[in-house]
């Protein structure tokens, strides 16, 4: 019986105007977007290899250790998934004078955007009148006069709706994938296909969730026109408002100092305050020292000291002790202030971390945010990849530091007189930064939360829909 009902739903929708309209929209937008994104990806690949070449040429001729740190900064290479999902990979660069503010004004269009906005809207368009329209037509009355469980009817509506909505989506996506595959410059690996499968699973769950929401709303209204109003109201709140407000609300609930404020505080600690402390410690230690070496009493200039050091061996000894004390005082001052700085940074990191977690948690009320996190984390274009990249970078930093130390040591051994910090060096054997995507298993694990939350929402809304349909007056 369920099969017959689902078939009825599918046939019913297949001939409807909305099916045609959504099909037409998706069949244009999805392949067009993939085409443009793929071209953009290829351009990014070209530019990346151009940049790498430039860097290699530079290193061949001008590599020197004093300023190499700023030159060989690791950067994220474009990954093949960019032709479907962009996430937060866009190149805004607020840290540079010549930034690129365009993505701030209009974010990029990609598969995540299409699924999360267009398909959720389509799901509501398909389901807002699932129950109340049939009531208005009178077919619901007829159906119920047969021996049919209400649970079957409602289940068939949701399943039928999902199937009918997946058809235009999958067809247009297959066309888009063709475009990607036809491009000889894009090579997808098995892991990419597996990732795509997981993203699609997420998309199916997401669409299913919106169908259930639509059916629930439909089953709690008696006219289709009221049902569409409520549906759109809920949609606007869930899709366009909750995610956007959540980081702002989180920053009110769990405040963290801004980066600018932190920089100020850190430079105060390690600059002005360090100098004050250093001078104080120096004065204390010198006062102690004068008791042991009375020759050091009184003030003398650098030149006078130099002259006396050469003449007077006793003074020389005292002066050496003085130099040692001064150094020790400043090392101590630096240690104390650096500790303060580290504590501050840790505190700052803790606060920002708490705020980020809160924003993420708040936004996860919205299925759009869940799907966005799920898809971007799976495809290495989200927040998780930023952290992963940071870890890779740290490992590479350490490797490079070790290389730098040992290289300078061997060079010094060969010719001790040369300033190896400011002399071109052959660094062809230096460790190169290699970006490797995080393992699929780790990415899937991270995506489990959003998956679980969406499943839970489905369960809750489905139960609600069932109960409101059971109580529904079909006359």
């Amino acid at each position: 019986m369920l099969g017959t009902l689902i078939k009825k739903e599918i046939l019913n929708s297949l001939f409807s105007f909305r099916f045609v309209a959504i099909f037409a929209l998706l069949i244009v937008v999805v392949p067009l977007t993939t085409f443009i994104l793929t071209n953009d990806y290829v351009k990014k690949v070209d530019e990346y290899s151009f940049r790498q070449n430039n860097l290699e040429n530079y290193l061949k001729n001008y590599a020197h250790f004093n300023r190499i740190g700023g030159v060989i900064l690791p950067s994220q290479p474009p990954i093949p998934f960019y032709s479907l999902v962009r996430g937060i990979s866009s190149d805004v660069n607020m840290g540079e004078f010549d930034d690129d503010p365009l993505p701030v004004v209009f974010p990029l269009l990609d598969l995540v955007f299409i699924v999360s906005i267009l398909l959720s809207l389509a799901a509501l368009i398909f389901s807002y009148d699932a129950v109340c329209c049939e009531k208005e037509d009178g077919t619901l009355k007829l159906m119920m006069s047969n021996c049919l469980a209400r649970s079957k009817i409602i289940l068939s509506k949701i399943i039928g709706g999902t199937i009918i909505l997946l058809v235009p989506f999958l067809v247009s996506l297959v066309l888009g994938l063709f475009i990607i595959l036809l491009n000889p410059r894009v090579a997808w690996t098995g892991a990419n296909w597996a990732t795509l499968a997981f993203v699609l699973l997420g998309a199916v769950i997401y669409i299913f969730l919106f169908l259930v929401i639509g059916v629930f709303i439909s089953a709690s209204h008696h006219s289709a026109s009221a049902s569409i109003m409520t549906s759109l109201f809920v949609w606007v709140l869930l899709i366009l408002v909750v995610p956007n407000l959540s980081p702002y609300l989180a920053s009110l609930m769990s405040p963290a100092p801004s980066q600018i404020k932190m920089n100020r505080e850190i430079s105060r600690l390690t600059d002005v305050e360090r100098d004050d402390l250093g001078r104080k410690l120096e004065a204390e230690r010198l006062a102690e020292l004068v008791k042991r070496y009375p020759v050091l009493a009184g003030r003398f200039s650098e030149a006078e000291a130099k002259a006396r050091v050469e003449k007077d061996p006793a003074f020389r000894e005292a002066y050496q002790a003085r130099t040692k004390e001064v150094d020790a005082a400043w090392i101590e001052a630096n240690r104390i202030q650096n500790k303060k700085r580290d504590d501050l940074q840790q505190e700052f990191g803790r606060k920002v971390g708490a705020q980020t977690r809160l924003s993420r948690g708040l936004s996860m009320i919205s299925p759009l945010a869940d799907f966005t996190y799920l898809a971007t984390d799976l495809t290495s274009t989200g927040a998780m990849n930023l952290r992963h990249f940071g870890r890779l970078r740290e490992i590479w930093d350490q490797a490079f530091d070790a290389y730098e130390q040992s290289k300078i040591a061997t060079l010094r051994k060969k010719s001790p007189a040369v300033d190896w910090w400011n002399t071109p060096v052959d660094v062809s054997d230096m460790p190169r930064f290699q970006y490797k995507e995080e393992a699929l298993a780790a990415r899937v694990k991270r995506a489990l939360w959003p998956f679980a939350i969406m499943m839970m929402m489905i369960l809750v809304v489905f139960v609600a829909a069932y109960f409101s349909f059971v109580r529904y007056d079909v006359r």
Partner: protein
Amino acid sequence: MTWTIVRKEIIANLLSYKFFIVILLTTLLLFTSFFVLYKDYKGRLADYELVRAKPGEPIAVLPPNPLSIFAKGLDEAMTRSFEISRIGIEVFAGQKSENVIFAFFPTPDFVYIVKVVLSLVALLFGFDQISREKESGVLRLMLSNSVSRAKILAGKWLGNFLSLSVPFLLVTILGFVLINLDPLVRFSASSAARFFLLVLAALIYIALFLSLGILVSALTRRAASSLVILLLIWAVTVFVVPNLGTLVARQMVDVPSVKSLSEKQEQVWTREVLQMIIERRAKDDRGTGDIVKSHFDAINRELNQMEEDYRNKFDRLVRMSKNINRLSPAASFVYATTELAGTGIGEESRLKENILRYKDSVLSSPDRGEKQAPAFAYRYRSVGQVLTQGGLFDLSWLIFFNILFFAASFVAFIRYDVR
């Protein structure tokens, strides 16, 4: 007669479930948005107090723009702190950089809410104007009296526009007044004027979607299909076209990425400094003033050229993407409002030009003592300038869409079979 129809429409709206939902949504959203962005503004103002330039420091930093509460635009980028040094401009960015969730979703400011939510609301007011009354038979009855179709259409448009815009205006103005009570945010007369132009643009934009709704309603027989068409048109105009347009423009204009530019800059200056050190070493560090000067000149020349090249290309990209995006009235609306508020792309690039000029003046002043730099001053473009440099075009483009849709719906309505 028109007024009778206007009154009928307003009363019908007031009694409807739709009106209740829509007003609830609009009020809720606008007030939340005002509150949240007002707090955000205060936070940024407090930051500004920390980093503002002391007399003589070569730092260019602007206070946050109070109108960014309504149109955030690029205000975050414009209020970064730009510190001038010998080899360039060092930039320190503000608040949002650390919490990565901000990067995922657009800012929910007044402009966003009007662009996305109120346009949808306007469509909901328009989508069934004609087809519903046809379905219920009211249209037939009305036309059996001696009333012209033009009057009916005008009455419907006006009635719905009023029932939508009056609550919207009340909420917006109330929000503006409440924010204005805070002595830290007091809007100047010119800001208030800009704000009213912004609201005017919002009204034109809303009217446009109302006309579009009525047009599609007059082209379809059933309210349900009218709604489906409108929702899809809405999704395309508000989301697809503007977000895809920038990408398309990038395919046509070859702009290097910011990363590649900054890498190249780093390579140039480290190379020159290295060569300078080697040459000085060869001369035993004696009489090397010329060497230093020539290398620093080389750095400045090459970097300036590179940056200028980038900026020229980027300007072309901005122009191109603006023109493509203008296919969608939503983009025109965003351009017009952000420029009016002083947080748009045009204002940002003008600010950058000013900072570059400031850098030249700092570096070329004869006494380059660290604490002697002239203060940086920036005046936002006046409303007149904004309007002549594209603002008027965007506004007239919106009005053009309005007239087009309204005229088309008139034609469609005349041909409409009301039976």
